[in-house]
């Protein structure tokens, strides 16, 4: 779009500029061009330096501008070379725009390459001197560290010059119109896009990031408008955004401009992913991830230890050495941002604060009123169960309100968590009771959350209850899987190499997380599905729900599973393919597969089924599942034992060799001491 209008020289790479960038760059260009001509606002620049008919920016102001970007000198040289100014000898519009894009890329931490400018970038930042700002922009307020760009403040000044688009002229000339809400959204677009860009790759979902939970912030945007600068500049930008629709405009207006730090805003998809990862580490979303577990997890992201240490410092707000779910999401988000090239902030951005994250947990589809009741001022001292509610809400995409009743009734007795129990018992009425039980958040949203929440709680409680129910009959296979001393991690990796490849190919995790399903969690869900007699809607994740549903109906429409699995997060996705995979290759996923392969279970049920605890009608399958699982575990344990023995042998050999060496050294020492003794009497005399 930026085609070299007016005799553009170089055939630089086709430059796709959004309208915001367009305006920004054209303003900057005009400034540089006009400045040499004796001041801005002088109308169309006839300050053609070289080629008549082509507007160029004078080298002086351009150099000043580049220096103001606060990039190192060599980077600026690189940029100048790349943009082609050196080649053609002057800064034409094309070169200037390319250079600005490269500056933006360099400031975002991306390498200075032509490819860098292909992706969406935030606007370049220039720290001009105060006098310059005043002279040129008349508003030094923009010299804050926020992403409000200089051009925003250029109002009735220059701006056009070489407009390859008359619209801009109209914008600048026309008085303000559109609401202040939209213009501030433009920069958030850019800042947010790179981050969500990475996530679109991650999730490979066709739906673009939607600032769904932030729509409610629209009313908050209005007061934000005047604060970021001259209002006059905004309508032109807005008009530009109206008139143009670029690829950047994937998202609707990101009205979450309450905070200028868009890269630090977590989208719904990201949150879901984080929550899933949290659950893979810690099935109970209301409790903590311990420091060591989190350390191992985050170390896989291959960031340096000091950076990880700093990220931890930022995200562990209460400095307790453990991460709650919002803290974990914040840390994860910071890691992702860092891997995408964003510099780490000095302090935890407001959108990543635990209180904010707790408030933003509920999904938008629940109820728009939810957001009104939520605000960043949500008390930070919310009790963990509030967190639970919100987490549960965030987890579910498809809220089915009528569900909870059944779950609640069936799970009441098995509920161990008091808060959950309380909520579940009152699931039907829910609203008033929940409100009363949660003094910390006496908001209407609670009631709304209560019902879907109880649903989710019922599911987890069922899982836990069933897990507990199964404990007495057989040694819980899942904990053994994860905590067995027989290098359980290796086993998991050994047994599920294919699964990650198949399913997580769609989800290249940015932090390089191993897409290993948590066996306990999966088996929980499996058992859960086995037990629950009613078809449950997906309470946690679509595929979980699918499992249960299919389990219930006993009609495995595996075709259904596949698309859902494709959408599902890695760990759950892996579990599903295991169903169809080789039966005996994946010990943790045995129960899942077995549900759909009754024939296998029959062969495996050796142990007395009576040992299995209070199983419901479909007792055969659960028993068989456990038996098969335990037999597989035996094999796994035996393999592990073998490996340990081998290791022992190696170490024993090493030990003996070292002993040998020690003996030799001893002998040498004795020999030396003898020599010393012989020599000593001579010297003493």
């Amino acid at each position, binding site marked *: 779009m930026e085609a070299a209008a007016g005799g553009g020289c170089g055939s630089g790479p086709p430059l796709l500029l959004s309208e915001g960038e367009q305006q920004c760059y054209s303003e900057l260009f005009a400034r540089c061009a006009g400045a040499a001509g004796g001041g801005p606002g002088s109308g169309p620049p006839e300050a053609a330096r070289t080629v008549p008919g082509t507007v160029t920016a004078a080298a002086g102001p351009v150099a000043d501008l580049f220096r103001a970007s606060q990039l190192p000198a060599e980077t600026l040289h690189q940029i100048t070379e790349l943009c082609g100014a050196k080649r053609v000898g002057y800064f034409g519009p094309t070169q200037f725009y390319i250079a600005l894009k490269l500056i933006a890329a360099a400031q975002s931490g991306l390498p200075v390459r032509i490819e860098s400018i292909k992706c969406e970038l935030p606007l370049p930042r220039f720290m001009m001197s105060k006098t310059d700002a005043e002279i040129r922009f008349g508003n030094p307020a923009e010299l804050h560290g926020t992403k409000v760009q200089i051009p925003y403040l250029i109002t009735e000044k220059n701006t056009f010059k070489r407009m390859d688009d008359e619209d801009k002229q109209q914008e600048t000339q026309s008085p303000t119109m559109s609401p202040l809400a939209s213009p501030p959204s433009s920069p958030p677009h850019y800042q947010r896009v790179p981050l969500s860009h990475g996530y679109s790759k991650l999730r490979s979902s066709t739906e673009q990031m939607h600032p769904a939970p932030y729509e409610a912030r629209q009313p908050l945007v209005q007061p934000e408008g005047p604060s970021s600068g001259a209002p006059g500049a905004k309508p032109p930008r807005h008009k530009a955004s109206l008139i143009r629709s670029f690829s950047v405009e994937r998202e609707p207006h990101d009205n979450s401009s309450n905070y200028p730090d868009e890269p630090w805003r977590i989208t719904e998809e990201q949150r879901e992913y984080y929550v899933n990862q949290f659950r893979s580490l810690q099935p109970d979303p209301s409790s903590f991830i311990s*420091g*060591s577990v*989190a*350390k191992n997890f*985050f170390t896989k992201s291959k960031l340096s*230890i*000091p950076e*990880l*240490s*700093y990220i*931890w*410092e930022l995200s*562990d707000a209460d*400095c*307790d*050495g453990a991460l709650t779910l919002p803290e974990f999401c914040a840390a994860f988000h910071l890691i992702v941002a860092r891997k995408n090239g964003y510099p780490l902030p*000095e302090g935890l951005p407001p959108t990543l604060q635990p209180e904010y994250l707790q408030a933003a947990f509920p999904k938008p589809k629940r109820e728009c009123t939810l957001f009104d009741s939520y605000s960043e001022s949500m008390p930070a001292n919310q009790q963990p169960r509030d967190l639970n509610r919100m987490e549960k809400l965030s987890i579910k995409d498809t809220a089915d309100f009528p569900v909870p009743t059944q779950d609640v009734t069936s799970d009441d007795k098995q509920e161990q968590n008091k808060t959950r129990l309380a909520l579940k018992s009152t699931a039907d009425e829910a609203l008033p009771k929940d409100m009363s039980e949660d003094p910390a958040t006496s908001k209407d949203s609670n009631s709304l959350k209560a019902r879907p929440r109880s649903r989710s709680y019922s599911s987890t409680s069922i899982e836990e209850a069933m897990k507990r129910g199964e404990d007495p009959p057989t040694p819980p296979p899942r904990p053994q899987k994860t905590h067995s001393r027989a290098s359980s991690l290796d086993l998991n990796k050994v047994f599920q190499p294919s699964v990650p490849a198949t399913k997580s190919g769609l989800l290249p995790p940015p932090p390089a997380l191993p897409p290993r399903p948590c066996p306990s969690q999966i088996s929980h869900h499996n058992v859960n599905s086995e037990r629950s007699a009613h078809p449950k809607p997906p309470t946690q994740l679509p595929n979980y729900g699918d499992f249960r549903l299919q389990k219930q109906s006993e009609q495995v429409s595996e075709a259904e599973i596949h698309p859902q699995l494709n959408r599902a997060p890695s760990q759950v996705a892996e579990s599903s393919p295991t169903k169809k995979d080789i039966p005996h290759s994946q010990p943790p996923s045995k129960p899942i597969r077995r549900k759909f392969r009754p024939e296998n279970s029959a062969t495996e049920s050796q142990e007395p089924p009576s040992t299995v605890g209070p199983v419901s009608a479909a007792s055969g399958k659960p028993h068989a599942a456990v038996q098969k699982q335990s037999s597989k575990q035996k094999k796994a344990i035996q393999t592990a034992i073998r490996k340990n023995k081998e290791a022992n042998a190696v170490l024993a050999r090493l030990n003996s060799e070292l002993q040998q060496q020690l003996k030799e050294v001893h002998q040498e020492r004795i020999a030396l001491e003898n020599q010393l003794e012989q020599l000593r009497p001579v010297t003493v005399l």
Partner: protein
Amino acid sequence: MAVCVAVIAKENYPLYIRSIPTENELKFHYMVHTSLDVVDEKISAMGKALVDQRELYLGLLYPTEDYKVYPSHQLCRYGYVTNSKVKFVMVVDSSNTALRDNEIRSMFRKLHNSYTDVMCNPFYNPGDRIHSRAFDSMVTSMMIQVC
């Protein structure tokens, strides 16, 4: 008012040392190093008593010493030992105001709390130098609070 803050590990190597007049950093390093002997002496003196009974705050380690370069400054060294034998040594410039004992204690308490926070970070290996920015900012606030 603290002109130098040092965190010494159990094995008597510094985990963190920072001083305000940076040009004389070596001198402060030396002062802290010599105070370590006094610290060891104090904690061994109470060796018979159980660790719990030993107070963490050690108090003034050295009689005040005239600072050659700045004659007006009276430098006092205070020590504090944690239960894990991690020592905090603080050199205080008492020329402006005579810092009361309580203030020194509170400063040490803050140091100890920040150190605990650093420890809570799973990415911090005990024995590493402390690079935590939160810790840095806390020490900075202590150092320039009165200056």
